[in-house]
């Protein structure tokens, strides 16, 4: 369960280009569900996602993840929380170019220092899950859009996280791949994970897999729960 209490996020405080992305946000995200944060760009959903995913701290307010307050944690512990509890799927995929799919998948686990053998095995089995085994040794520069998307998902799962965070995951995918993506999310939900997606794509929002939709506008949540 993820709780945000009175969360405000202001960028460039004190400067002339000060900008408040989130204003006094209060939200509770239920566990083991697929929640979509939706709204036009600039509405604050990406910022909310950053804060939920412990990537950035709110200017004021409190964030709790599974009962543990993370706002006052120093950065090093935040990074540990991020590594162990979360898996991230980014809008631009954000894989490291020039190295193989397998290496990309293993990278989030490097700091744990586990033996190479078991790490490789786990990474390979994840790639197999997404039908990517033949491409494991290829540099990601050579993979298609859909394949890259699946590598990203595999990477997000390497540390077996409880929460998956996805930011505009279908932005570069066609409808077929978008549907496949949501199917994968549904499957992950059935494994007991919590999925949080930020997207203004109707295909995501209106998918059957989604349990709840939260609408953002101008840094605040709208009472309506309709998509778009």
């Amino acid at each position, binding site marked *: 369960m993820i709780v945000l209490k009175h969360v405000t996020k202001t960028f460039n*405080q004190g400067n002339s280009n000060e900008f408040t992305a989130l204003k006094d946000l209060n939200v509770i995200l239920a566990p083991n569900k697929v929640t979509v944060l939706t709204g036009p760009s600039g509405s604050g959903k990406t910022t909310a996602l950053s804060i939920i995913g412990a990537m950035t701290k709110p200017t004021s307010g409190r964030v709790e993840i599974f009962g543990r307050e993370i706002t*006052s944690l*120093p950065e090093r*512990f935040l990074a540990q929380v991020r590594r162990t509890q979360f898996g991230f799927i980014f809008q631009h995929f954000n894989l490291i170019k020039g190295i193989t799919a397998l290496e990309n998948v293993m990278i989030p686990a490097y700091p744990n220092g586990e033996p190479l053998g078991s790490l490789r095995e786990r990474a390979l089995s994840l790639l197999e899950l997404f039908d990517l085994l033949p491409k494991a040794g290829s540099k990601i520069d050579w993979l298609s859009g859909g394949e890259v998307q699946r590598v990203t998902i595999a990477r997000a799962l390497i540390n077996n996280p409880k929460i998956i965070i996805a930011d505009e995951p279908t932005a570069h995918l066609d409808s077929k791949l978008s549907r496949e993506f949501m199917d994968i999310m549904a499957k992950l939900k059935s494994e007991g994970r919590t999925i949080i997606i930020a997207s203004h794509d109707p295909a995501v929002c209106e998918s059957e897999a989604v349990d709840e939709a939260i609408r953002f506008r101008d840094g605040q949540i709208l009472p309506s729960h309709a998509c778009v």
Partner: protein
Amino acid sequence: MILHPAILALSIGSLMTCLMIVYAAFYGVRILRHWDLQSGSESQLMLEKKTHLVSTLMSYVFAYQLCSLFLFIFTADKITPLFVGAMCAAGTLNANGYGYPALLLKIINFILGGVWLIINYTDNRGIDYPLIKKKYQLLLLIAPLIVLEWIFQTGYFLKLSPDIITSCCGSTFGSDGSGLGSAFTVFPIMPMKVIFYATMALTGAFGLVFYLSRNPRAGFIFASMGIGTLMVSVASLISFISVYVYELPTHHCPFCILQREYGYVGYFLYLSLLGGAVGSAGVGTLISARRMQSIQEDLPRILRRLTTATLLCYLLFTGIATARMLLTDFRLEGY
């Protein structure tokens, strides 16, 4: 000024270290004044990031201190042909009034730096940076000492000139000289041996007691004995250990044991001794922080590891010294 390559290297290195520690101290002051973990403000976040910089700088400074300490002595040893009357580092260090103080400061800074790193490591285990204030206060103490060391080292090198007549270790550490060095050499051997082994045994005993019982009082005694052990060990080195290494009853020099003909045994002895000193100082400092909430989980493990390391260092020192004494036919009794 002697333009010896190693002297240039040490001077440049020391200058850089000096600048780095002043830079670190500057941020240390900032951190001490504005640190507020509860606020999520951008300035606080920047301060948290700055602590990483200071940690990295200090690790570097500490590593440099260790290497430069030995390079300094080695260089002093190497340039002995340039001075009349000098036969090893003891003589060259004596060439002007800055030599020995520079060496002393180097040793002190090494030990303090080591303690700082231990505190830093422990502090990072705690969620709320429990030791941060103490850490930066210590940093503000170390910084001027390093600047002082740089001044003395530079002064020493600048005032070196090959015509100076200096004294060799025979007079500095000989029985007919005056001064502390000589005082140790005239001390009767048997009582010195007894004191040495007794001190080591006591330190070891308290260390073991602390390791097993985790009683803070035992730990404190163990830590405070560290200083005593260091001094007794150095005195013993001058008094009899080095004599066994040289197999010459009048040679007491603490520097010549670093030379190649004695198997560089000096390095092992001094490294283990310094390791022990840092370890016991670290134990003492951490025990005084035992009430901090956030490190309760990690503190016992850290203390245990430190105690083991310290005991091992002292054991190594005693072992090497004793081995050297037993493995030679030379007998000191009767001198």
